[in-house]
């Protein structure tokens, strides 16, 4: 079976004055559909750059990045935008909701850019909000919601296109521990429903929810483990 994501000899080099700094140094790995992968490492280890490349937000300087059987490293910016809008979902540490814009409109955003018929947009956005427990808050503005609620809106927005891959960058980094568990529970539910998740975190207890842990150091993968207690999430969820 073809992996969902396959990267080979991935380099990402930034010019720094006269010299160059490599954030990724020949990273290779494959992620199969349905996996929940946590990416760990110290800051500057290249884990965020790795996530940005997987999310088609960044392009590798060298190497191959295949997503769902297509080589995407060489796609145009419009083609990458189209993949982001239709097949990927993002959850960020700082939620990244558009301010002064209702929860419903925030969730509708990917549908608008993918030109989903207008009538379907609202129905699907409401469904997505309901699935993260925010039915009835459709017309709240981000400023009227708590941090956990905002992150749930962001998850609803990431889900509304039924993406093949959900990318989460420190999804619980700005939340207290109780709310963090709520968010991780939602991710666990998504994982069970078959969505592939790649999640960057530096907290071991958050990473423990995943079934596979990639550890980055100096732009390289130094370990790729499948801990014994993999699937801890299953025991957490009620």
């Amino acid at each position: 079976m073809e992996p969902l994501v396959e990267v080979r000899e991935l380099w990402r080099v930034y010019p720094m004055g006269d010299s160059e700094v490599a954030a990724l140094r020949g990273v290779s790995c494959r992620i199969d559909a349905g996996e929940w992968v946590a990416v760990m490492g110290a800051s500057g280890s290249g884990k965020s750059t790795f996530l940005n490349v997987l999310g088609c937000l960044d392009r590798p300087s060298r190497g191959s990045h295949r997503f769902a059987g297509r080589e995407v490293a060489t796609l145009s910016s419009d083609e990458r935008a189209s993949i982001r809008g239709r097949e990927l979902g993002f959850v960020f540490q700082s939620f990244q909701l558009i301010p002064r814009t209702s929860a419903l409109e925030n969730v509708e955003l990917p549908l608008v850019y993918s030109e989903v018929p207008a009538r379907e947009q609202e129905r699907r956005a409401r469904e997505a909000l309901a699935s993260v427990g925010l039915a009835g808050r459709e017309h709240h503005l981000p400023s009227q919601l708590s941090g956990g609620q905002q992150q749930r809106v962001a998850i609803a927005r990431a889900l509304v296109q039924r993406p093949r891959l959900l990318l989460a960058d420190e999804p619980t980094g700005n939340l207290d521990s109780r709310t963090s568990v709520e968010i991780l529970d939602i991710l666990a539910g998504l994982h069970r429903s078959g969505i592939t998740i790649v999640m960057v975190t530096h907290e071991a207890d958050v990473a423990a929810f995943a079934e596979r842990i990639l550890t980055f150091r100096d732009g390289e993968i130094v370990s790729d483990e499948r801990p014994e207690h993999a699937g801890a999430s299953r025991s957490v969820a009620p």
Partner: protein
Amino acid sequence: MTLLRMSIRTALRALRRNKLRSSLTMLGIVIGVAAVIAMVSIGQGANAVVREQISSLGTDLLMVIPGATTASGARSGWGGASTLTVGDGQAIARDASAVDEVAWMRRQVVQVVSGDRNWSTVAQGVPPSYPLVRDWPLTSGSFFSERDEETAQRVAVLGRSVVENLFGVGVDPVGETIRIRDVPFRVVGVLAGKGQTAFGQDQDDVVMMPFSTAERRVLGAKLVGNVDLIFARAASSDSIPEAIEQITRIVRERHRTQPGEESDFTVRSLNDMAEAQQTTTRVLSLLLLLVASISLLVGGIGIMNILLVSVTERTREIGIRMAVGARERHILVQFLVEAVALALAGGIVGVVLGALVAFAVSRVAGWPVLLSPAAIVGSVVFSALVGTFFGFYPARRAARLDPIAALRYE
């Protein structure tokens, strides 16, 4: 929601959030468009007034005046030693096929007395064809006849202003007797009011009498048959150039002007005068238009400036939109919509303001208000174009942002 609807909604939301900033940005466009609308309306009103005045002189009218034409146009040839004669007029009537009526005139300022009232006015000696040439009807009585002309009868036709000053408003003086330079005249008719010329002369302040009467009994003549002015009516507007050419040829021949020698008279058409008037207005309009375009330019730069600020403020939002699938052109369109919305709002406010100014000015000046639909549509469309043009650079800058850098922007 469609893309365009969302873009419009987002743009309006952004503009509403910064009401003061948006209105100040619009101001340049508002002033520019208001200037255009006011100027065009006022200019058209003024033109209409001029056109009306000139057509009151008689359409298709040509005047032969003594004095040469210089390179810069007609020398002021009114008065002076006239070399024109009744014979010239008759020759034009006989030989110029493009002319259908001819009249001539001698005139002088005279004192007119009726009972205990007197009034200083212009006495004009004219042939009976004069009202036809000038297209000038009578409101009462009739014009004097060919017979009156032949026998130099002491009959007069009065202009409206003279009637008002000698007899009072609304009085019909036909049958009354007036004295012009102590010569008694019987009033046989009253001319319809024609109003002022484009140059401010009251055309109704006039007493007309047969040419022969004027020459022999009132005005006197150094040389019999001399006239101050010859009027000719062209057969149609199209034949004006032909008529001018024929008149020039006939009169030059009669005056024995050698080829290459300057004519001692000038043929003027009222259309030329109307055009000269309109050229002046046009130059003035162009100047004002220039001022208006500078204002629009400044307004456009203002829009560009505020849009650059807006792009910077909303960098993160742009990053978010890119992350959820917005393409470059989606971002571009969104900011262009914002620029166009600003400019368009400015344009509409400007149209309203300009119309108000035009109403006020024409009210004071007593002109008709002529709001030009073309100017309104044109300036609204033009402000949208200004928005597009000046919004393009900031919008492209937004569209080319790197999504990762934009998402991290604080």
